[in-house]
């Protein structure tokens, strides 16, 4: 069958691959041309992504931009794409962040084992897989992207990182593969159950009815296979230990892709797969998951306060933030869900800003230890301000984008799990500590020896970081376009779970 019209999602997945094909003909020595091609490719993908977002009908909660072709009909597997509001938001985030990574990390491939050509080919392949993982509406297809994605990341960390990069890459890969194989067992389980009940398919919409015929025991087991894989990816305490190492060893750009985008696949998967496929099991496990989420929030925050390395610090803050996201998802309220999705988007940008500015600082100082920095505000005001704003966004200062999402998560959680919400709120206080302490040490005060001659951000670096900061600020004041996309779908997911938002208790009284 010849496609009469090219599907936009397929197009956005094809473009990076075309970029890779073009890169194959660029001579290895011509790093500049390589980077330019990578930038043009990622920008054109971003243009497609923005166009899709504009075209997205936000009141329509069915999948949009759908395309479905038979892939392996013998197993009922289709190449099926489509996005709902949540997937749309995450794809938008991914395609916007990738060119930023290319620009800001212009020289990142220099310290690698291989040429820039390999670096940017890996990034482009990864972009295709990222879009695929969010856009798949076929569980098998999703799994293929979910696992195949590990390979380019593995080589990005191991080939271009710093320090103990090979060990960190292996740790990352083994953790992820282990989770992935558990998920494979669950997928086989789903497949066999679906076959047994007469519908040999991997279509997510069809499978969302499967839970009505599963025994509770079976549903719980299958749920756990998925959930553990996503909890490793997200990462949730106590499955997080690969993240700080990977983030420390990877280049800043890779870290942005890893923490900012890839880890979202975990929380995205919880919504799309855990909640949709196994609603009863999700309810059964909610108390445990909420507990783990709260522990993650506090644990990540405490470790961040104690972190001596700037990249590890950011990684720990992310563990805390992923705790918030998971909390919002499993609070089973529409505010919580909306907040979590918005949180994922915002976290992508604030983490990107933090990692990229930190990367610029580290490459200048040749050290990632926080105590090596001091008084940067006087020497490099623009870099210092960028880091400061990114930090404020990370601690969810009102007026910046992440405040809206964190607030929604906490409000959404409070209506159903007040205790968890109250404890989680301490995470905000701790966030102020883990951001402001390093800001004070590294940026303010007298300039310490070794930092006097540091140069400020170059034009390229400014161009890389500016859009990220602009998005953080603008969305802080005006998040409603995104909320319009997210709200309908999150209400629908919550109501599909058989939940309604708890009515606020209003005390009787006169004004």
């Amino acid at each position: 069958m010849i496609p009469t019209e090219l599907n936009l999602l397929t197009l956005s997945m094809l473009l990076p691959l075309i970029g890779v094909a073009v890169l194959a003909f660029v001579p290895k020595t011509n790093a500049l041309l390589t980077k330019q091609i990578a930038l043009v490719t990622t920008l054109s993908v971003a243009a497609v992504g923005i166009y899709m977002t504009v075209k997205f009908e936000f009141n329509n909660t069915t999948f949009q931009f759908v395309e479905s072709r038979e892939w392996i009909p013998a197993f009922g597997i289709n190449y099926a794409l489509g996005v709902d509001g949540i997937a749309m938001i995450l794809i938008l985030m991914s395609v916007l962040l990738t060119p930023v990574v290319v620009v800001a990390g212009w020289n990142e491939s220099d310290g690698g084992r291989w040429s820039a050509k390999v670096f940017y080919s890996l990034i482009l392949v990864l972009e295709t897989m990222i879009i695929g993982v969010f856009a798949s509406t076929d569980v098998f297809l999703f799994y293929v992207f979910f696992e195949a994605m590990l390979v380019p990341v593995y080589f990005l960390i191991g080939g271009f990182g710093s320090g103990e990069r090979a060990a960190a890459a292996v740790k990352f890969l083994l953790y992820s593969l282990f989770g992935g194989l558990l998920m494979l067992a669950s997928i086989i389980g789903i497949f066999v159950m679906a076959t047994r009940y007469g519908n040999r398919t991997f279509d997510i919409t069809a499978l969302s009815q499967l839970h009505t015929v599963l025994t509770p025991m079976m549903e719980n087991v299958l749920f756990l296979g998925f959930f553990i894989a996503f909890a490793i990816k997200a990462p949730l305490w106590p499955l997080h230990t690969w993240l700080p190492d990977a983030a420390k060893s990877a280049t800043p750009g890779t870290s942005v892709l890893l923490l900012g985008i890839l880890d979202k696949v975990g929380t995205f998967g919880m919504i799309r797969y855990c909640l949709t496929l196994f609603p009863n099991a999700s309810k059964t496990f909610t108390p445990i998951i909420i507990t783990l989420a709260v522990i993650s929030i506090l644990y990540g925050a405490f470790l961040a306060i104690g972190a001596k390395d700037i990249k590890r610090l950011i990684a720990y803050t992310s563990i805390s933030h992923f705790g918030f996201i998971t909390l919002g998802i499993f609070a089973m309220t529409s505010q919580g869900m909306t907040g979590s999705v918005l949180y994922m988007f915002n976290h992508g940008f604030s983490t990107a800003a933090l990692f990229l500015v930190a990367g610029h600082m580290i490459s200048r100082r040749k050290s990632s230890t926080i105590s090596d920095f001091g008084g940067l505000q006087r020497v490099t005001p623009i870099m210092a301000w960028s880091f400061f704003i990114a930090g404020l966004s990370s601690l969810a200062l009102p007026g910046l984008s992440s405040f809206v999402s964190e607030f929604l998560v906490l409000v959404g959680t409070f209506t159903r799990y007040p205790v968890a919400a109250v404890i989680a709120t301490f995470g905000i206080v701790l966030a102020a500590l883990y951001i402001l302490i390093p800001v004070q040490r590294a940026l303010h005060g007298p300039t310490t020896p070794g930092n006097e001659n540091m140069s400020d951000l170059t034009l390229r670096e400014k161009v890389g970081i500016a859009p990220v900061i602009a998005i953080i600020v603008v969305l802080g004041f005006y998040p409603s376009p995104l909320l319009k996309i997210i709200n309908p779908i999150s209400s629908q997911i919550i109501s599909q779970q058989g939940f309604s938002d708890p009515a606020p208790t209003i005390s009787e009284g006169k004004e």
Partner: protein
Amino acid sequence: MIQFVSPTFDYAALAPILIVLGGAVIGVLIEAFVSANLRSRVQLFTTLASLILALGALVQARGKYTSAAAMEAITFDGAGLLLQGSVLIISIIAVFLLADQENFTALASALPGSDEERTSLQQSLKITEVYPLTLFAVAGMLIFPVATDLVTLFVALEILSLPLYLLAGLSRRRRLASQEAALKYFLLGAFSSAFFLMGIAYLYGFSSSVSFAGIHAAVVGGTGNDVYLLLGIAFLSIGLLFKVGAVPFHAWSPDVYQGAPTAVTGFMAAATKVAAFGAMLRIFYVVFAETYYQWRPAFIAIAVITMVFGSIVAITQRDVKRMLAYSSIAHAGFLLAGVIALSKSGLDASIFYLFAYGIATVGAFGVVTLVRDAAGEVTDLNRWSGLGKRSPLVATAFAGFLLAFAGIPLTSGFIGKFSIFSAAYESGSTLILIAGVLSSAIAAFFYIRVIVLMFFNNPVEDGTTVVIPSVYTQTTIIVSAVVTFILGIYPTPLIDFIQSTAQFLR
């Protein structure tokens, strides 16, 4: 007086076997009559031609299925077609590896280290007997999965085994290890053949028949001699499990894999598995299906032990060929899942898995032949360090094969693993699914370790080099790599073909 019926043959169905046997006989004649400097080229041509002709004959015979291809002794059916096709395709790819004569000793009869050996090396004698030997082995492998008579099955087993014992001893370097491997393989192989024969005897005692149909009738009807049946199944299984290298009958495989010339190891590992699993599938699906409750528990136990043991022991290996040997043991465990499934989807999955695994195995051993130093192939993993820097293409190809073994999506290994585990789970073996997934996780560890070694470690400066592959070896590696990835990205045509073709005729 005994009535003697003259046998009838269906030559169309037997053609592939006959062509390969004919090619082997011609090969022997070429050894005798063609001058030495032309011999290797003529032999290669003859071997390839007979394999390709056999494949052509097989395609011609498609659809003409019969359970009486050679009286009751051979059944040519859809599953047989697929298995024979797999054996032939894998052999064709593997023969290109054999064509690199560098790997073989010049004079097999010379004692290692003797003057005779030295002069034979100086005269640059070439040992071209490998070609007819290979063809004989292939012929045995073609008969093995289609034999429906225990005596024919045994003869096929011997036809495929004897040339392999010889081939294992022909390595040019480390000849003592190679000869030790050959002897070990031979002795243990003979031992397992004895078990196999014993099993045949018991089954004859049980059913007073050696044909599959006769035994099956006795299994269904019952003869009251169930002990003989059980002993027969057990001994027969030992013979078969030995050939596929399942734990606890695996002890030969690491030594033989390591000692044999790498090209032979690749051929043996890939093609023997197809033939032996083909026969095993036929026996258990056709003859013993109704009595599954008697053998399945034991097979589940063996499969689980084989997967787990192979994966765990592979971690400790420091030699690439031994590592691949243990990996192949683990894969034998995964493949047993297909036998246990005892369903149409189990059969389909097994055939797909056998083909995909066979191709990737030949390719992987093809890469191993390329990494050398002055003394020959380097199989010590430590010295593979930094291979990615020296020779990115070769290292990437090897990494691709390893990812396929590990079952990473977008390689053929993933589709194989998915289909075989789901078939096993479909028929109720939850244990197989769990053990399979866990041992895959363990196995991933050592595959990745090799990738780390090749790409993330610095090269060691001890003269290890990657030789520029000859056209032959290049063909093997490129074809295997392409097939491995195509089957991972778009396996539909093959899966559909297998699904519509794979049937056992009783």
